[in-house]
C-alpha cells in the first residue's frame, strides 16, 4: 500500500511545483521551486505535520525536496534535545550529511567523467 501512496503523494508534491511554475506571474524558475520546497518542508516538519506524511507515503514524502527540508528540521530539533543550543547549529546538516556528501561527490565525479554536450 505504501507503494501506491509513494506514487500518489510524490506525484502530488510535483504537481504543486508545476502549478507554482505555470500559474504564478512572477518568473518562478526550477531554482525557486527547489528553494520553496526545502523551506516549506522544514517549516511543515517543525510544526509536526510532515512525519505523518512520511509514515503514509514513505519515499513519496522523503524523495521530494520537502523531505530534505524535513530531514534538516528534524535534525535541528533532535540536535536541541541532545546538545542544547549547539545542536541548533549542528543537528540539521548532520542529519542531511549523507545526501549532501553524495550530491557533492557524485556531482563532481559526473562533471569530470562525462563530456559536455553541445
Amino acid at each position, binding site marked *: 500500500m505504501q*507503494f501506491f501512496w*509513494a*506514487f*500518489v*503523494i*510524490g*506525484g502530488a508534491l*510535483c*504537481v504543486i*511545483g*508545476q502549478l507554482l511554475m*505555470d500559474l504564478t506571474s512572477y518568473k518562478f524558475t*526550477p*531554482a525557486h*521551486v*527547489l*528553494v520553496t*520546497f*526545502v*523551506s516549506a518542508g*522544514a*517549516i511543515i516538519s*517543525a510544526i509536526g505535520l510532515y512525519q505523518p506524511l512520511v509514515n503514509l507515503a*514513505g*519515499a*513519496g514524502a*522523503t*524523495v*521530494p*525536496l520537502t*523531505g*530534505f*527540508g524535513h530531514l*534538516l*528540521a528534524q*535534525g*535541528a530539533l533532535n540536535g*536541541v534535545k541532545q546538545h*542544547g*543550543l549547539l545542536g*541548533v547549529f549542528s*543537528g*540539521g*546538516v548532520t*542529519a*542531511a550529511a*549523507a*545526501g549532501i556528501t*553524495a*550530491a*557533492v561527490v*557524485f*556531482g*563532481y*565525479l*559526473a*562533471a*569530470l567523467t*562525462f563530456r*559536455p554536450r553541445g
Partner: protein
Amino acid sequence: MVNINYGVTKMPDNSMPLIKQKQRYMEMVKESTPKPRVLRNVFWAFVVGGLICLVGQFILSFFLARGLSFNEAGAATSTTLVFLAAFLTGIGLYDEVSRFGGAGGIVPITGFANSMVAPALEYRAEGLVFGVGARLFTIAGPVLVWGIVTAWIAGLLYYFFR
C-alpha cells in the same frame, strides 16, 4: 533547463489560391494562440514525479528489508537516487526526464542532483575551481542556504519555547 517545443508552423504558400491562404492563415493563428498547457504539464509532472518516488520506494524497501533503520534506509535511498541522477545527467538522459516531466523531474532529489551536475558539466571548460567547483552550487547553494537557515530558525524556536 526545460526546453519547450513551440512547434513548427508552416508558412502559407503564395502559390495557394487566396481563399486557401486565408484558411491557412486562420489555422496559423489558432495554432500559435497559447493553449492551456497547464493541465498537460500537471499530468506529466504527476506521472514522472510519482514514478521517481515509486523507484525511491522500491530502493527504500530494499534497504529496510536488509535491516537498516528508517533513517539509515532513507539516507541510503537518497544516496542511490543522487548517484543515478548524476549518471543519467552525465549521459544526457535526465534532460529528457525534465523536458517530459517538468516539475516532476525537478522536485525529487534526483532533480536536485541534476541541478548540480548540469551546470558543472556545462562550464567545465572554466576549470576545476570556478567551472566545476563553483557551478555545482549554482542552484544547490541557494537550496542549502534556505534549507539550513529555515531549519536553524526552527531549532532556535524549539530551544527557547519547547
